[in-house]
């Protein structure tokens, strides 16, 4: 059980490090989105997009809010499902109880 927790902690730390280290060591980089960079490169070659988005968030704040909403909905559903699965497992008959030594 303790070994299992250690592995979990190390995995979480590794994910955080992969994201945080670039920020720590290259804080001055712009971190522009790659999608935007690709669009800029295409427009540089003289191409003009021929269709506009049907709906576009009216400001950066509204846009990041909607992105946060997307992540929140996804995170909420994921948490609900994992909770349900765990509850179902706990309520199962004893011979089907989880074995935690994996």
């Amino acid at each position, binding site marked *: 059980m303790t070994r*299992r927790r250690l*592995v*979990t902690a190390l*995995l*979480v730390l*590794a*994910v955080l490090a*992969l*994201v945080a*280290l*670039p*920020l720590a060591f*290259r804080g001055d*980089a*712009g*971190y*522009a*989105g*790659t*999608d935007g*960079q*690709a*669009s800029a*490169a*295409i427009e540089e*070659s003289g*191409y003009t*997009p*021929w*269709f*506009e*988005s*049907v*709906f576009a*968030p009216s400001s950066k704040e509204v*846009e990041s809010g*909607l*992105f*946060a909403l*997307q*992540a929140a*909905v*996804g*995170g*909420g*559903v*994921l948490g609900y*499902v*994992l909770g*349900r*699965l*765990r509850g*179902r*497992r706990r309520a199962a*008959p004893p*011979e*089907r109880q*989880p074995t*935690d030594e*994996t």
Partner: protein
Amino acid sequence: MHIAEGFLPAPHAIGWTVAAAPFVVHGARAVVREVREHPESTLLLGAAGAFTFVLSAIKLPSVTGSSSHPTGTGAGAVLFRPPVMALLGTVVLLFQALLLAHGGLTTLGANAFAFAVVGPWAGYGAYRLARALGAGLLPGVFVALALADLATYVTTSLQLALAFPDAASGFAGAAVKFLGVFALTQVPLAVAEGLLGVLLFRVLTVSARPDLERLGLLAPAPAEERG
């Protein structure tokens, strides 16, 4: 990997839509069949969709000084095979095209082909190969998620190179240019996504063991334990 609205010439936009459509229709039928035949799969299907929904919303900084988002399509591909993700991935893209002005309706086909078709199949292929070579479930999940992520961005780069070949160096030159924008940035994010997938499946192997056994991801427990 979102090609912005209007950024593909019409013949390309139509071509990719035609290419992606049969996969999405087949995927929708696969989802309906899975839910009808195995109602107990609904929870895990929700988990697979939600995982993509979260990960594709979060833009992360990378060592190249750019930021990009993971895809999360490999998890569902490993659990339910890739066709299911063709539908779930396209739903995510449609949401982002309509509400976030991220991607677009004219580029939905091309984006779906990269995100919801090539990514899941590449991830699933890597998973099957890893398992065939004797790897366990978790290493298999790691390569599946990392490769699904990376393959999506490589596909986007090639789609753009096809539409906008370089004046001097043609398709190859443009491919190098767009891969330079997308692929390198994506490598650390793909690794991070692989690790997140391992975290998810570590939870699932305990909480959803019967489901993983039924889906063929884990060998069934010995008969005497079943009672």
